[in-house]
């Protein structure tokens, strides 16, 4: 992070040209000098070839000049390529640097900024608007130097050839220099509008994405489409205007420049006719004059890039031009380590619009004391917690930790000493483990890679998982993992051993909740395809989605008298599901218990219509395949809308043995059959431990199963291995694969793992079930009290009895303060909050 430099938002665009790139830029200038020389040389050669070699009929001179010519041209092209490489490098480095620095700056901005600025605007600024300024930085030295030098070289050469002609042909340029800035002003105006409108559009897209539920449930497609279309229309007009003005500049320039040869012809031709100019010189003059055009065009383009780039740059930097509220790292001292004494004196906080959220709050806590903050919503509880956590800067009064004013502390001091759990904590994309270590790792962070040896070890990690009650969830993630083949042969062996013990010790007890795989029994909690195979296909054409089109499999079905009955079952399923779900919104929740997914329902709706008109065997092949596919996916224990006919069940059981014999003979190795001694790689660890499937996924059944599973895993010393696998579970983008309760538990766990001297919890357990809330509270009361200071904003009043102090906030002021007993005895506000009447 730029420590000595001014903050990134204050840096002028020009400061990027040499910062970090000085070496490259100097190298560029050197190369350009050579290039310019290599560009002028061919002109002289051209003149000499005409005037000397051809006129004097000297072949050796012709060869020599042509040789020099070709060497110069090759050198010029090669160097030009090198210049392009360097330019690209510089431009991309500059863009990358700008992005990084701006992102680093962004993270430190006050929360207020993010409340006021739309997400899409920030994304757009960082993602797309820095490309133009970056391009400018890449060109900033190379283009003006090389083109001005080239221009001067050619101009000098022209004067050397004929000063009168040179003066006349160069006279057009001042006119261009006068006209173009006038046009550019209008380009800049349009460019500013373009940036603003593009931001509006990005914000709109970002808003749509985060509000898509509301849009789809309201069906407000028309409203949103019109809003977006209007913005795009406006942007379209602005972009057209912007582009037209830019082309206007190009055209104006082209027009004036093409007047050049005209002047040469009329004046040069006249002089040549008069015999005052050799023909070779006129040719050279014309060529040189023409060559002025390219560098000039490039200069004009550079001018445009400069203008567009600096408009984008200023607009972007202006957006982020705000100071962080707190210094990040302490200077000239180590970060403090606090004991956790807190002293709050006449603390007040008002929003920018002057609404006073806290007034004259005064209290103090000794290290290790626990404080509960209660009150109605809107009473300022969270604001108080956030002020202590340095998330908001208070306006008045004092807030001291171990005698240090919080507003004067650096972020590092706070990070090292204070842990904060927000009410709706944010979980980052990544694994459970990464999220668990997030706070502890941030504390160790010194802007480099973090030494993994310093992070909490496995036992500590598992301990906090247990303390917060997310342990069973992580265990379940671990158990639901599908192991890759050959990934962990030891574990596979262990699992097969566990499988045997589990069957012996808990088989009967679990039979209520688990259906074990038995070769001679129908599996109600597996699909019909799985029932037929009783194994895992190893070939793509035998996977369930391909079976209805696999001729070998279809032959087998016909042989086993299963083809027509299965299609009949498919038809029955199709009719029932369409009848129940056909007119419902395509919500996941409706389709959890159905073999048809929300995106397939339309297809089956149409198919159900055709079923009414034609008999099964008259249906087109495609429809027959659809119905067969549906039947093969049918799981009677899960898809309860249709019962599996007894007769069909018997046919399937017969089919199982026919299929097994046939495929072992015809396609050996195509299917790995379920065996009590073999691992099933297509299924989860849990299914493998059971050698079966769970009948239901309800929390009641899971609790029952967990008890047995945990016992067995502990007995086999496997629990920690499974937990470690579970910790590798990917929580989805922003943790969307976790429930609200799981997210809160994980957030509490990550702060427990950091174990800071001061812990602030802002309704941190509000989404948890009773048991988990009490478990965590109990832990705080027994193991944290006396060691870590706690400030806990609490909405459930049945957990506050053991706190050392309770503050009741009302409209930002302390209404009353004391121990639970004192306040209840007083029959004041706390008494009222707990439901008593004064």
């Amino acid at each position: 992070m730029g420590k000595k430099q001014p903050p990134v938002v204050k840096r002028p665009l020009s400061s990027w040209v040499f910062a970090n790139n000085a070496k490259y830029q100097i190298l560029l200038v050197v190369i350009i000098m050579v290039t310019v020389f290599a560009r002028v040389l061919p002109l002289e050669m051209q003149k000499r070839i005409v005037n000397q070699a051809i006129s004097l009929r000297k072949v050796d001179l012709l060869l020599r000049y042509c040789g020099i010519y070709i060497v110069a041209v090759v050198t010029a092209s090669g160097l030009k390529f090198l210049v392009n490489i360097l330019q690209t490098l510089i431009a991309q480095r500059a863009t990358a640097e700008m992005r990084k620095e701006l992102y680093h700056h962004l993270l430190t901005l006050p929360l207020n900024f993010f409340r006021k600025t739309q997400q899409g605007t920030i994304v757009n600024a960082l993602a797309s608007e820095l490309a133009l300024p970056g391009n400018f930085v890449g060109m900033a030295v190379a283009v003006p130097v090389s083109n001005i030098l080239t221009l001067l070289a050619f101009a000098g050469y022209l004067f050397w050839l004929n000063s009168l002609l040179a003066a006349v042909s160069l006279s057009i340029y001042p006119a261009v220099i006068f006209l173009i800035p006038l046009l550019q002003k209008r380009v800049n105006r349009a460019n500013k509008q373009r940036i603003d409108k593009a931001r509006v559009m990005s914000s709109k897209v970002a808003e749509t994405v985060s509000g898509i539920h509301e849009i789809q449930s309201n069906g407000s497609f028309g409203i949103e489409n019109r809003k977006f279309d209007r913005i795009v229309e406006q942007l379209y007009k602005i972009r057209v205007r912007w582009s037209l003005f830019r082309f206007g500049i190009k055209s104006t320039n082209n027009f004036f420049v093409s007047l050049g040869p005209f002047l040469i012809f009329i004046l040069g031709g006249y002089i040549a006719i008069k015999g005052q100019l050799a023909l070779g010189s006129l040719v050279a003059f014309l060529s040189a004059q023409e060559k002025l055009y390219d560098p000039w065009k490039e200069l004009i383009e550079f001018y445009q890039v400069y203008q567009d780039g600096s408009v984008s740059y200023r607009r972007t930097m202006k957006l982020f031009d705000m100071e962080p509220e707190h210094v990040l790292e302490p200077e000239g001292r180590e970060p403090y380590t606090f004991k956790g004494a807190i002293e709050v004196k006449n603390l007040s906080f008002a929003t920018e619009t002057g609404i006073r959220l806290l007034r004259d709050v005064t209290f103090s806590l000794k290290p290790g004391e626990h404080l509960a903050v209660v009150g109605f919503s809107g009473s300022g509880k969270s604001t108080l917690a956030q002020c202590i956590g340095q998330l908001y800067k208070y306006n008045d009064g004092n807030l001291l930790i171990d005698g240090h004013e919080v507003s004067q502390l650096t972020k590092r001091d706070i990070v090292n000493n204070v842990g904060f759990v927000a009410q709706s904590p944010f979980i980052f994309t990544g694994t459970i483990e990464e999220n668990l270590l997030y706070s502890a790792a941030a504390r160790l962070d010194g802007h480099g890679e973090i030494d993994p040896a310093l992070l909490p070890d496995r036992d500590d990690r598992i301990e906090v998982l247990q303390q917060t009650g997310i342990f069973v969830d992580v265990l379940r993630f671990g158990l639901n993992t599908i192991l890759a083949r050959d990934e962990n042969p030891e574990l596979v062996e262990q699992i097969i051993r566990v499988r045997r013990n589990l069957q012996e010790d808990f088989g009967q007890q679990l039979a209520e909740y688990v259906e074990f795989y038995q070769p001679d029994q129908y599996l109600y909690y597996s699909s019909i395809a799985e029932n037929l195979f009783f194994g895992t296909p190893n070939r793509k054409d035998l996977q369930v989605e391909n079976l209805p089109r696999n001729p070998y499999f279809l032959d087998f079905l016909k042989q086993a008298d299963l083809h027509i009955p299965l299609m009949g079952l498919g038809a029955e399923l199709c009719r029932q599901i369409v009848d129940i779900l056909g007119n419902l919104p395509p919500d996941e929740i409706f389709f959890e218990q159905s073999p048809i997914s929300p995106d397939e329902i339309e297809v089956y709706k149409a198919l159900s219509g055709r079923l009414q008109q034609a008999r099964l065997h008259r249906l087109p092949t495609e429809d027959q395949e659809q119905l067969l596919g549906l039947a093969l996916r049918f799981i009677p224990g899960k898809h309860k809308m249709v019962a599996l006919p007894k007769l069909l069940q018997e046919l399937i059981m017969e089919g199982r043995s026919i299929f097994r014999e046939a495929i072992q003979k015809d396609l050996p190795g195509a299917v790995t059959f379920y065996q009590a001694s073999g691992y099933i790689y297509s299924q989860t660890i849990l299914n493998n431990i059971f050698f079966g499937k769970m009948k239901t996924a309800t929390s009641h059944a899971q609790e029952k199963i967990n008890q047995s599973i945990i016992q067995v895993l502990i007995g086999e010393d496997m629990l920690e291995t499974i937990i470690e696998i579970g910790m590798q579970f990917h929580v989805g983008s922003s943790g969307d694969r976790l429930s609200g309760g799981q997210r809160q538990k994980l957030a509490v766990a990550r702060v427990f793992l950091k174990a800071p001297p001061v812990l602030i919890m802002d309704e941190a357990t509000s989404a948890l079930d009773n048991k988990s809330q009490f478990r965590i509270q109990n832990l705080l009361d027994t193991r944290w009290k006396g060691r870590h200071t706690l400030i806990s904003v609490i909405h459930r009043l049945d957990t506050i009895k053991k706190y050392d102090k309770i503050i009741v906030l009302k409209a930002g002021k302390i209404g009353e303060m004391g121990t639970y007993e004192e306040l209840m005895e007083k029959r004041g506000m706390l008494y009222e909050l707990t439901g008593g009447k004064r």
Partner: protein
Amino acid sequence: MSSPEGNDNHGGSCEFQDNISLLRETSFFGGLNLDALKVLAYLCSREIYKPGDFLFQQGDEDGCAFYIISGKARLLLETGNGTSEIRQYGAGSLLGTLSLVGHTRRLFSLQAVDELYVMLIEREKFMKGIEPFPETIPRIFQSLANIIVSWEEQFISSHDGSCGACTSKIGVSIL
């Protein structure tokens, strides 16, 4: 979920059809039209509880309604003075419909007395299930009102004004 008899209910009538008939028997769901009933019956699930298992515990926010198909359950109240049994429920009872309508914490615990076989529906599914049928909503309100009023009616008539202390607390139906 398998039925307690262990015949797994497969091969005969399907669980979905059974659920429709069970729901129709209750006063809470009985008045709904068939389309809505079908969706709700489809969204129901079955569960077995062993003697001593809790269906929910005091303070939980589980948001489930239970219909007892077979077996018995007891309602327990935990107070500072220990746990007391309020009453028992048998087959055909529908419990917890209020928690389908809104987030509420359980004020009692419900525990299986013997092996208990229930049909249950969760609030989230219930809410989603009736959403496409707005005409059912007034009926659900009506059922809820009926249940509360008839409860209190029974309470008053059975106590006949003789319960001095509790008369001061009656009146839940005028909330």
